C-alpha cells in the first residue's frame, strides 16, 4: 500500500507537534522516521495510525484520503516501545484479540494466531501471561499481534529501545527480514540512526516538527543537505569546524587557525563565495599520521575495535578513529591527516549544505 502525507500538521494550542510534513511511501517500502526525542516523529506516526487527528493536511492510503477513518478501519498493525501488551490476557489472547474483535470464528482464530506465533518463534508460549515473558519474547508477541490481522501497513514506534543491546541487534535483523518477506509497507520510528540506516529503504529525518530530509541511507550519509542531518547521521558524529575557503592558484583551500587544507575543487568552489563557512568531515576521514596538522590529544576513548581520539587544534575539536595499536596517550602531541574527498560545507546562517542544494 502507498502512503502519502501532504502538508501534515498537528498543533495543540500554540505547540506544534508536526509541521507541514510532505512525503510519499511506496508500496512495500520500509521507511524510518529518524530524529531526536520531541522532533515530531511519533506524532506523525500516530496521525498515520489515526490516533491523532491532523490539524491540517492530508493522509492518503493508496490515493484515498483517510483523515477521518478510525484506526480500526485503516487496516494497520502497530508495535510500541512499551510493547503495550494486555497484561491480563495470555499470549494467545493477546495475539488473537484483533481477530476476536473482527468476530472471526474461534477455530480460525486459533489457527491464525498459532501460525503467527510459530512464525515469531513463540508458538509454545501461548498460555503464558506477558509478565512471565522476557522483553524479547514480549516484543515478539507484540509483533505477532500486529501481524495477525494481515495489515497493509505496519507502524513501529521505537520497538527495540527497551531491549538490551545484543537482543536489539538480532531483532533488528528479524524485523527487516520479516518485512521483506511479507512485503508490508512499514514506517519505523527511531532515534537511533544506526537502526534507521541499517533497516530502512528510505529515511525521513525530522527536527522540531519539520521534515529535514527524506532520502536513501547512503544519500543521507554522503550528501547531507543540512547541518542537522550531517550531524545526526553517522556514528561517531561528523566533525564541524568554522573555516574560510579561498581560491589560490586554481586550488581551493580551507583555512582556520592551525589548519590549512586542500579541498576538492568541485566542493571548494561552492563554498568559496561565502566568508566563514562550516566544514564537516567524518571521523573516519581523519587519521593520525606524521606530517599533517599538529594538535594535542585531549582524551582517548577506547571503543574496542577503534579508539575514538579527541584531538585539539587550538580551540578546534576533532574526533578521529584511530587504531588502538598506535598507543595514543592523553596530552601527547600528534599530527592529523585529513582526507577531504568527502568534505561537506554548510552555510552558518541557514545551516543548509552549500554543496547539495
Amino acid at each position, binding site marked *: 500500500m502507498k502512503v502519502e502525507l501532504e502538508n501534515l500538521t498537528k498543533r495543540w494550542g500554540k505547540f506544534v507537534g508536526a509541521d507541514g510534513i510532505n512525503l510519499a511511501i511506496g508500496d512495500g517500502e520500509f521507511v524510518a522516521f529518524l530524529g531526536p526525542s520531541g522532533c515530531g516523529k511519533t506524532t506523525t506516526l500516530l496521525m498515520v*495510525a*489515526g490516533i491523532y487527528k491532523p490539524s491540517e493536511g492530508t493522509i492518503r492510503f493508496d490515493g484515498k484520503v483517510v483523515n477521518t477513518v478510525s484506526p*480500526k478501519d485503516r487496516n494497520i498493525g*502497530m508495535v510500541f516501545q*512499551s510493547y*503495550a501488551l*494486555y497484561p491480563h490476557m495470555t499470549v494467545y489472547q493477546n495475539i488473537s484479540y484483533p481477530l476476536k*474483535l473482527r468476530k472471526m470464528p474461534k477455530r480460525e482464530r486459533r489457527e491464525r494466531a498459532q501460525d503467527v506465533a510459530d512464525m515469531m518463534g513463540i508458538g509454545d508460549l501461548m498460555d503464558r501471561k506477558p509478565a512471565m515473558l522476557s522483553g524479547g519474547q514480549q516484543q515478539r508477541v507484540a509483533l505477532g*499481534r500486529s501481524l495477525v*490481522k494481515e495489515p497493509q501497513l505496519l507502524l513501529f514506534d521505537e520497538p527495540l529501545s527497551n531491549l538490551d543491546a545484543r537482543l536489539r541487534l538480532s531483532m533488528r535483523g528479524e524485523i527487516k527480514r520479516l518485512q521483506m518477506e511479507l512485503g508490508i509497507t512499514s514506517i519505523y520510528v527511531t532515534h537511533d540512526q544506526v537502526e534507521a540506516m541499517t533497516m530502512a529503504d528510505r529515511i525521513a529525518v525530522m527536527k522540531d516538527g519539520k521534515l529535514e530530509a527524506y532520502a536513501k541511507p547512503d544519500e543521507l550519509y554522503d550528501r547531507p543537505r543540512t547541518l542537522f542531518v550531517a550531524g545526526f547521521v553517522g556514528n561517531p558524529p561528523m566533525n564541524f569546524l568554522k573555516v574560510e575557503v579561498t581560491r589560490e592558484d586554481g586550488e581551493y583551500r580551507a583555512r582556520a587557525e592551525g589548519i590549512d587544507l586542500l579541498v576538492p575543487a568541485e566542493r571548494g568552489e561552492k563554498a568559496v563565495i561565502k566568508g566563514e563557512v562550516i566544514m564537516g568531515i567524518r571521523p573516519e576521514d581523519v587519521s593520525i599520521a606524521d606530517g599533517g596538522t599538529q594538535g594535542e590529544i585531549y582524551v582517548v576513548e577506547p571503543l574496542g575495535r577503534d579508539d575514538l581520539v579527541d584531538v585539539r587544534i587550538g580551540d578546534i575539536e576533532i574526533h578521529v578513529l584511530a587504531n588502538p595499536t598506535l598507543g595514543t596517550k592523553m596530552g601527547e602531541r600528534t599530527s592529523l591527516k585529513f582526507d577531504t574527498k568527502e568534505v561537506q560545507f554548510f552555510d552558518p546562517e541557514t545551516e543548509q549544505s552549500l554543496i547539495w542544494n
Partner: protein
Amino acid sequence: MTVRQRLWRGVPYLILVLSVLPIIVGYFWLVLSSFMTRTEGLLPVGNLTLKHWSFLLEPPFGRGYPSIWRVTLNTFLIAAFMTIVVVLVSALTGYALSRLNFPGRKGFLSLTLILHAFPSVTLLIGTFFVLRALNLYNTSLGVGLVMVGFEMPFGIWLMKGFFDGVSWDMERAALIDGASRLQVWWQVILPTIKPGIAALAIFAFISGWNAWLIPKTFTIGAGQQATLSVYLQNFQGETVAVDWGSVTAVGLFQLIPVAIFFIFTQDLLLNIYSGGAKGGA
C-alpha cells in the same frame, strides 16, 4: 543503654496505646456485653449466655420490629446497589474524564473536584424535596440513590486517578486492533485497574452498610426500609429499659463485614481512606 533512655523509648508506644484505648475498650465491652447476662462497667455480671443472640432466630424486639434477616438483606441490598452503581458510574465517568477529548471535559473535572471538597450533608434538605418529587421518599431505592449521588464526586476522582495511570500505548494498541472506546474500556482497561475498582468497591460497600443519617432521614419508622443502623438506633431510642445485651449483639452482628474487610484488606483500607476520607466527623 541507660534505664532513662529505655524509658524514653517507651514513651511513643505509651502514647499510642493510650490513644487507641477508648476504641479498644469499646470493642471489648461490645463483645463482653453480648455474651454476658449483663455488665457493670467492664465487669461481667451473671453467666456466659447466648440469649442476646436469639435475635438471629426470632425478631427480638417485638412490637412490629421486622426480623433481623429482613433488615440485613435490606442493608446488604442497599450497600450492594451502592457499590455496583458507584463503581460502574465512576468507572465510566472517570474514564471519559481521563481519556476522552470532549467539550466540557475541563469544566466537569473542576466541578467534580469542587463537589469532592464540598460537604454534601448540607444538601439534605434540598434532597428531601427531590426524593419526594421522584416518589422515592421512604424507599430503599431512594436511599440508595442519594448515597450513590453523594459518593459520586469521590468515586469519579478516585477512578480518574487510576485511569490516568494506565499506559496510553495500550489503549492505542487496542484501538488499532479494532476495539471501540467502549470495548477498550471494558475489555482492556478495566481489567488492568482491578485494584482500584476493589478499593472503591470496598469503600462504597462499607459506607453503604454503615449508613445511618441518610436512611434515617429519608425513611419513616422502623419498617422494612430501615438499614441495620436505623434498626439498631431506633431500638435504643424507643425502649425504656435498654436491653444492652441484645443491642450490643446486633451491633456486633452489623460489624461482621466491616471486620472482614478490616482483617483482610488492611493495606487497601489505609490507601482508600487517604484519598477517600472526607468526613470530619
